[in-house]
């Protein structure tokens, strides 16, 4: 591998697949940051397991992006040799872990979206994406159940846990609009039957989020200004720091294998 960054041939299909792959990798990496420091052993294992699911999904998606691009980039090249601006993940998934409540809120808001998303994607006209979707939807259903239980436990818990859960949901809410953003890349995929119209998932997402927040005695924030940009490579300052850690070895010793 040459040193430095790869140049991705950004066809609509490659971009479409990289968006999902980057969501999974970045969120999986965030969860891995809890490894060894979670509040309890059981939660430490849960967070690591969820991270593993997501990194597994990312691997399948990157491998497919490489096939679609057909210039010889493998999963490692996509993960380790792209700069921040080439990453296409949602801003939501790159937000720092914060406290346990914030990590749960982030995972909950994402899983409530990803579960119906991958379920719908099982009907994709693209056989590989449909196969990846069939595995991912089961995993995300499990993440959703786990996180929803924690949101209820935290929201309906002590004064402190309620305050922290409230702060977490409010802080992350402005990043949820981007989940349903339909732009040219999405429209092209929808037209070919490869992608699903994200707008059609908004209702299911809202009702499952509302149901859990109500059980948790947490208020659903009003939809105000929504942050966007991740899908086009415009990220918050947090992604650069994350990538610095994720990519360090490969950047310092290009082509290193272990």
């Amino acid at each position, binding site marked *: 591998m040459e040193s430095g960054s790869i140049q991705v041939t950004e066809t609509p299909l490659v971009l479409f697949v990289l968006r999902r792959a980057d969501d999974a990798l970045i969120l999986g990496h965030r969860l891995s940051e809890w490894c060894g420091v979670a509040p309890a052993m*059981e*939660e430490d*294992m*849960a967070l690591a*397991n*969820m991270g*593993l*699911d*997501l*990194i*597994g*999904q990312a*691997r*399948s998606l990157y*491998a*497919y992006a490489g096939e679609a691009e057909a210039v010889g980039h493998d999963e490692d090249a996509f993960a380790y040799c792209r700069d921040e601006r080439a990453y296409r993940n949602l801003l939501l998934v790159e937000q720092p872990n914060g406290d346990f409540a914030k990590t749960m809120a982030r995972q909950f808001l994402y899983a409530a979206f990803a579960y119906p998303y991958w379920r719908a994607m099982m009907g994709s006209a693209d*056989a*590989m994406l*449909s*196969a*990846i979707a*069939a*595995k*991912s939807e*089961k*995993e995300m*259903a*499990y993440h959703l*159940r*786990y996180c929803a*239980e924690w949101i209820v436990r935290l929201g309906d818990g002590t004064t402190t846990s309620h305050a922290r859960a409230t702060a977490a949901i409010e802080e992350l809410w402005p990043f949820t609009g981007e989940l349903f953003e339909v732009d040219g890349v999405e429209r092209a995929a929808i037209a070919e039957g490869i992608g699903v119209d994200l707008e059609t998932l908004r209702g299911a997402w809202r009702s499952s989020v509302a149901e859990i927040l109500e059980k948790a005695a947490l208020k659903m924030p009003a939809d105000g200004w929504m942050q966007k940009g991740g899908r086009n490579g415009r990220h918050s300052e947090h992604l650069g720091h994350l990538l610095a850690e994720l990519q360090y070895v490969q950047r310092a010793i290009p082509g290193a294998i272990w």
Partner: protein
Amino acid sequence: MISIAEHRIDAPRVPAAPASERRPEDLRAEVWRIAGAVVDPEIPALSIADLGVLRDIRVDRGAIEIFITPTYSGCPAMNVIAVEITLALAKSGLGPARVTTVLSPAWTTDWMSQEGRRKLKEYGVAPPQNGGGRRALFGIEQINCPRCDSADTAQIAEFGSTSCKALWRCNSCREPFDYFKCH
């Protein structure tokens, strides 16, 4: 089927009847027996045939291709399983073989054999409930203790020591145990 990865190891030369001289159905059955006996490194009580991870074997003019499927997307055991299959075949004088990972149709605990469920329970892991799938994903699960069969059990954690397990506890014999999650 959809392949995501290929693993290829050339078998050492072992004097045996060349694979190409055998009847394809005999060769396929033998490969199935040998490859199917490879165990999951994370649950060594179970073979990949018991688990339903071994999906198919194709034999074409002596060339062997073996199809396996991951339990979970991030299952770290897949590479080891692929290597173990190739080694097991090489030891039996078969191969070279190609091991291909397929994602579709997605693995489900419903594919675990009855024999596998029995071995799992003997090993101390509560087997997944039959036909569980989606119902169990969101519903209340009733899991019996693999040691004393008591139904008085409680979940300790949704996630256990590997992707495929959750951690439970028996209120009768007080022992903690792993439960192989429905998937």
